[in-house]
């Protein structure tokens, strides 16, 4: 692999390399935003927190760090971050608990960092409300890509109204209502539901959802989809045991249901 990467041809146009020197927001998607996105990094390892800070600031993000869960929860309302980067193993209150508490008051995208990929840890984190996870060690590019996929994209204003089952979705206002009653969803859950509602005739495989909702270009952990579909169902379904809005198509994936 390395042989290919270091092919001696002197390409000056490294995609991000040129832009890294200047401290302006280097990437196209960022420039459309008026203020840079704020990222709260919660990690007890100072070196990694600092390094993540360097990388993200280089990409035009605003970064704040917290060494533990308690200080993160304390800083959270003050900072109002656009995304939380949360290490799962923290001294004192662990990352999963922090995740749960943040989720109680906010739908902010949470990206967890974990050194352990064992099933239980990841699933527990996702069930606690994390939107996505990154396994240490990760590439800076991967980190940035994951963050960008989750930070609210500046979408063109629409007056699009969708309906799925007995729910109505106001895409622009990020609101989902059942018979006029507002249902609170996290941005990720909203995206997932919107994706299904836009093409109610289509069955979405987990891989397609990972690509369209999470922004993965390569196949990734399909548990992400499973866990979030469960979370979404628990909020929007009348009977989460017998889902009628997000229907499982055995062996394929999910599609929008009739809602009855």
């Amino acid at each position, binding site marked *: 692999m390395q042989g290919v990467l270091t*092919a001696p041809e002197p390409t000056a146009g490294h995609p*991000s390399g040129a832009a890294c020197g200047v401290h302006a927001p280097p990437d196209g998607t960022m420039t459309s935003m008026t203020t840079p996105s704020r990222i709260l990094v919660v990690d007890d390892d100072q070196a*990694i927190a600092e*390094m993540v800070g360097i990388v993200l600031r280089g990409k035009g993000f605003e970064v704040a760090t917290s060494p533990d869960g308690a200080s993160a929860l304390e800083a959270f309302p003050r900072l109002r971050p656009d995304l939380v980067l949360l290490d799962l193993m923290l001294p004192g209150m662990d990352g999963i608990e922090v995740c749960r508490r943040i989720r109680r008051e906010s739908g902010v995208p949470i990206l967890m960092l974990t050194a352990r990929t*064992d099933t239980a840890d990841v699933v527990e984190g996702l069930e606690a409300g994390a939107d996505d996870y990154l396994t*240490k060690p990760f590439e800076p*590019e991967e980190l940035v890509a994951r963050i960008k996929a989750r930070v609210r994209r500046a979408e063109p204003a629409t007056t699009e109204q969708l309906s799925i089952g007995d729910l109505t979705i106001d895409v622009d206002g990020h609101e989902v209502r059942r018979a006029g009653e507002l249902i609170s969803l996290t941005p990720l859950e909203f995206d997932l539901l919107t994706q299904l509602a836009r093409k109610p005739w289509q069955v979405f495989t987990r891989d397609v959802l990972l690509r369209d909702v999470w922004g993965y270009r390569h196949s990734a952990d399909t548990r992400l989809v499973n866990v979030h579909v469960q979370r979404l169902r628990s909020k929007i379904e009348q009977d989460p045991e017998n889902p009628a809005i997000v229907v499982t198509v055995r*062996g394929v994936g999910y599609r929008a249901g009739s809602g009855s």
Partner: protein
Amino acid sequence: MSASEAPGSETGRTPGAHGPASPATPAAATPAPIAEGPTEASSWASAAWPAWRARLVQVADPRSWSLALRVVLVTTLLSTIALLTVGAYLSTVIADGLYEQRRDRVLEETIEVRDDLGESLAQLSGATSTQQQDAVSAFVQSTGGQGGGDRREVALVPVETTGTVFPVASSDRTLFDEVDAEFAAAVAEQPDAVSWRSIGRADETGRTAPALLVGTRVVVPGSGSYDLYLIYSLQEEQETLAFVQRVILGGGLVLLSLIVGIAIVIARMVTTPLKRAAHAAERMAAGDLASRVEVAGADELARVGESFNDMARSLQQKVDDLTELSRVQQRFVSDVSHELRTPLTTIRMASSVLDSRREELPGELQRTTELLAAQVQRFEVLLADLLEISRFDAGAAELEALREDMSALVARAVEDVRPLAGARGCLLDVRLGEGASTAVVDARRVDRILRNLLTNAIEHGAGGPVLVQTAGDEDAVAVVVQDFGHGISPEDARRVFDRFWRADPSRARTLGGTGLGLSISVSDAHLHGGWLQAWGQEGEGAVFRLTLPRRPGTELVRSPLRLERPFDRTLADASVSPTPTGEIRIGPDLLPDLDPPPGEDGESEDPTEADLPTGPGTATEGRTR
């Protein structure tokens, strides 16, 4: 998990056309080679008959019977013999006693009768012959039919008469049938004694009844000698004897059944604790280390149970200790790997930041950052592999099997290594068999196996083509990855799955593999209940075959693809099958400058040459896509 445990390197020998290579060197002591083709079925069929017979022989062998059964059988047999002996002895003694008693009485009676007769005849010396005749008749009649309650018959035969001749008189004419010349002679020889012998007489019903024939001579002074014959029936004694025998037999049977009962009870007393111990041992063997025997009392059997329990306890302790030790060790490896990840993340990000801005650095530092980045990546791969190994060792690896399209998995893996193959100038010849479509597998693991095999084949293929073949049957799917490079010997084929094993330690690892890839792959295959096997010929090439059951956990019997195959380059290159993936196939005829002619590739093994991303390689890439 060593390679010898892997069902690798089958021992069979291909009947294929490539004769000259390697004498048949079967890798010994591997489980039954997978026969391919029809031979398998026939060998199974023929194996069934001896198995059945062996079973019969085993059942017929008393040593295979249960201890209780044997104890009871032996006891019954020996008791029967003992009882029969005693019964026979008693019966004989009683019979003899009865007979002798009766005979003595008979002889006494005979003498009495003779004396009476002598007296009667003596009184008749002066009587008329008619009177005498009447008197004799009367005597005979009165004597016959009485005597000790038994029937007795009397006959009087005149032998030598001096005066009046008495006619022959008898109470039963058939008496004379029993008196033969020999007996008459015996009577004549010893006139004063009483001769006797036992005879069998047919009674009214035709059955032969025992009797005693007695004969003696009566000498009547003045009227000559007469032979007196008497037959005493032994019917009553016979009946007594029969009764006694019946009693003995009945008693014997009762005794025998009692003995059998006792034997059963005793056998059970002994075997039940043994059986319990055996069951406990079996449970232990099956993995239940907490299995114990119930012990009651303090006898020898209780001691067996106690010893067993002691053994089980100490065994469990040892196993627990070892398990704990192993767990601690695995935990340590896992913890180390995890702990290393956080600093590694920082290092990697730092290196990546440096790498992305290496244009700003002076020449030497540029190369330094390159090296740093490459080695950090290598370190990371090694760490990931170590972690995976520790997960397998801890038994923590879980199969996440879903229905997958094997052809798609293979095609994807091939696509992923295509840049690498292109850089090496290596042609990937993919032949997707029609049978290999769906199987329930863990896509991540299968992908990892395929990637390992492909990378491995490209690395060791010395720039030669790599043949990827898939096939499937009802129960299994198989993927074969074959290269035509340096090759491995069949002996080495067993060891390629060992951790950190190198075919040739002097040969450098050009692709920076960790040396754990194949070891992880074989564990991945085993997790599916599948096989990952290797075979090769030195200097000719190597074959790796992955066989997975269509559903995890089903027993694999055979693989749809052959593992031991000829390394015929022309064969591998030429026959290009139509591919369902719609890939454009590149044959050697289309790219004549890509591969050296078949004769040369054995020699051109300069790794540095293969290392360079050569022009033709890139061309392959462009044309194949």
